[in-house]
């Protein structure tokens, strides 16, 4: 009798434990506003992945997979995309998700004041409600990255009713249709989400609550995981990887990022370019690149937790241009190039961030380039200031990372297109623009690979950006956590996660 009671009590305890389970995630930063139209940070996207479903998603191999849209079809002229929507989906306020909601959302993304999605959806000229569950996006010109754009914040759908009711402060209390609904946010402390009972894929959701806690210091984030206050942390410091591997109760996952770390060189943004041999002469830039050993840089600056690379996508990416492989370090050739350029000891200033990682990278680059005769002066600059200096062209070389997009266009267009907002090098070439536009207008991946190969060869000649490596997204978690999916965008998919 007694034993039975104990067993029953134990079972009841176990049941209640599994009934009210919270997934506690440690973030590296405090997210910005939680409105998909206005949001602009990587860390915010991690929260959105649990909160707001998108029209489509990407998988581990960067294929486009259904989410709120179940199928899609391009028109013959590639100027419209018709999407069939998932039936039976509701927003967290109970409102129905349908074609009218999609039209509202795309229009909201395009028109709301301060929208960060407007540029991404620029080619979308109008949205037609074909029927209740079918929507058509009409484009001003064919735009191959559209589906990957819709797999990110531009494809996130919010409740039209809630957005209209609270237009000025929607981001303070977002209402979407994802697996978890918004409960509370205490700035810099915690974001709490609660399981949405009417979620269309609720069979795959095994937690009742998720809390996101921003903990800036990587050591403290890890300490919280080790002491059991967190179940999952993102962006583990590469230097902590060895210790985590020794820890029996912790798991570690790594994914090569979609973005890159590189050095942008001012080749035409301002008169700084012509005043410095590095900005003036492509031979000097080639020598600079040849003085660098990317594998060595990764080892020292990133504790080996990155993949060396020389393009806007990593060598493992389907769109990597194989005709432009990573050059081997060649100090002798670098010296010769400098001699030919008439500047055996060129000097330039390398603007870099103030974090210890950025400093380490700059110092390794400085030491390696010195072997070829370069005198690199490191200028550590706080981020907001460096961005401003880069924008004004008041720099010679700038260490700048990009978080990356699923389509190579997102890593390319704004950086190498003429007068584009992220083109800090100032390099402006009509044939590059023509190739970039052609890659956007071509839907066939094989054709696009050819275009990117030509572009890579062209850009390699000028080197406005010297790409160095692609960092690993490093996650550490309680080993009891299973069902983790490592998608290269670095976001945490809660579907299927279990503990």
């Amino acid at each position: 009798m007694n034993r039975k009671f104990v067993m029953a009590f134990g079972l009841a305890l176990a049941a209640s434990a599994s009934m009210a389970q919270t997934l506690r995630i440690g973030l590296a930063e405090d997210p910005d506003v939680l409105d998909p139209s206005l949001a602009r940070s990587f860390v915010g996207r991690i929260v959105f992945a649990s909160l707001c479903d998108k029209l489509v998603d990407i998988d581990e191999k960067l294929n486009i997979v259904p989410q709120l849209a179940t199928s899609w079809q391009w028109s013959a002229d590639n100027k419209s995309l018709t999407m069939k929507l998932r039936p039976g989906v509701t927003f967290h306020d109970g409102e129905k998700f349908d074609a009218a909601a999609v039209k509202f959302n795309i229009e909201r993304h395009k028109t709301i004041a301060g929208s960060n999605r407007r540029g991404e959806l620029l080619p979308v000229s109008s949205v037609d409600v074909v029927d209740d569950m079918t929507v058509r996006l009409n484009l001003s010109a064919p735009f191959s990255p559209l589906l990957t754009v819709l797999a990110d914040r531009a494809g996130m759908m919010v409740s039209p009713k809630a957005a209209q009711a609270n237009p000025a402060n929607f981001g303070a209390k977002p209402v979407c249709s994802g697996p978890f609904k918004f409960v509370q946010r205490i700035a810099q402390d915690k974001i709490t989400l609660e399981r949405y009972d009417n979620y269309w894929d609720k069979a795959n959701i095994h937690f009742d609550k998720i809390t996101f806690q921003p903990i800036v210091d990587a050591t403290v984030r890890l300490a919280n995981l080790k002491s059991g206050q967190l179940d999952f942390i993102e962006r583990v410091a590469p230097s902590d990887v060895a210790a985590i591997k020794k820890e029996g109760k912790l798991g570690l996952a790594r994914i090569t990022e979609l973005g890159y770390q590189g050095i942008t060189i001012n080749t035409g943004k301002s008169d700084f370019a012509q005043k410095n041999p590095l900005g003036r002469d492509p031979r000097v830039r080639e020598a600079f690149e040849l003085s660098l050993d990317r594998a060595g840089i990764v080892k020292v600056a990133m504790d080996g937790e990155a993949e060396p690379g020389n393009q806007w996508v990593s060598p493992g990416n389907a769109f990597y241009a194989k005709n432009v492989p990573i050059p081997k370090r060649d100090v002798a050739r670098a010296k010769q190039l400098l001699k030919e350029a008439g500047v055996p000891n060129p000097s330039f200033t390398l603007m870099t961030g103030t974090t210890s990682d950025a400093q380490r990278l700059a110092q390794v680059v400085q030491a390696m380039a010195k072997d070829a005769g370069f005198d690199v002066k490191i200028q550590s600059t706080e981020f907001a200031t460096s961005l401003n200096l880069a924008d004004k062209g008041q720099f010679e070389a700038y260490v700048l990372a990009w978080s990356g997009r699923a389509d190579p266009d997102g890593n390319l267009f704004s950086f190498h297109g003429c007068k584009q907002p992220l083109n800090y090098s100032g390099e402006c070439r009509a044939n590059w623009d023509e190739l970039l536009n052609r890659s956007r207008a071509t839907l066939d991946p094989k054709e696009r690979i050819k275009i990117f190969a030509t572009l890579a060869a062209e850009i390699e000649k000028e080197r406005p950006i010297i790409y160095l490596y692609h960092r690993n997204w490093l996650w550490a978690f309680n080993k009891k956590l299973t069902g983790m999916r490592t998608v290269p965008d670095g976001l945490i998919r809660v579907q299927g996660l279990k503990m």
Partner: protein
Amino acid sequence: MTQYLAKRLAAILPTIFFVTVIIFTLQQLLPGDAATIMAGEDQDPNVIAYLRQKLHLDEPIPVRYGYWIWGVLHGDLGESLRIQEPVLGLILQKLPVTLELAAMAMLIALVIGIPAGIVSAIGKDSVWDYAANVVALWGLSTPNFWLGILMILLFSVQLGWLPASGYVSPFEDLGGNLAAMIMPAFVLGNAIAALLMRHTRSAMLQVLNADYVRTARAKGLDERTVVLKHALRNALTPIITLGALEFGTLLSGAVLTEQVFSIPGFGKLIVDAVFNRDYAVVQGVVLFTSTVYIVLNLLADLAYFLVNPRLRA
């Protein structure tokens, strides 16, 4: 007394006005452009233009100051552009956290610092004096963030006694709240304790040699009464000033400690706001804390009256 009080009160308003001008101007002098940093990774020119207009960045600084001060006078400190929350709400959200942390740290500092200072003054050049000095020197020279991380490693990771970081509201769980606050409060209190100890010691040494103390002893009073009632009371004046100033500093946020322990107080709020050029938040918080600072100073001055009868004359 009334006249003195009136004079001090009258001086507050121009001081606060001057503070608002300084806060505003200094912030505008920060390098970097609020609109560019707010626009995020993509740097969409339309977004930047929109933010410029919204933040009045195209207008001259005095006009921008006018917009801000007009709002402040109407009780509107503006809104955080980064997270779409009103600044006043953020301040009221963080204030209890920072107050609690500051009060706990101050308590720890007082409990350790003043007795240690008295003991080392009485037993000047004794073992106790040297021991207290060594501890004080250690407290003063230990960086907060380092001590914080070491404590986390010991008490949370190794021993598992305390949560590594984070904050729990005392209304939700008082035990959890104290467990979360004790380490950061100790880290902060530790440095102030050392400071208080040094000042108590030197103030006590001065008064212990004063004539009236000798008289008190000559009257045959026991040493306890001499030290605690006659000497300490006089020695307290500079310590109160120091305590109030330190408390004011604590209220304006213990940046590093809050960062290490992820305590969502003023320090974290303002650091994030500065790095993100969230002007309204920086201005609101600095205005608030400097006003508190000024008021605390006034209260410290008033406290002199209570402990020092000579000023009351």
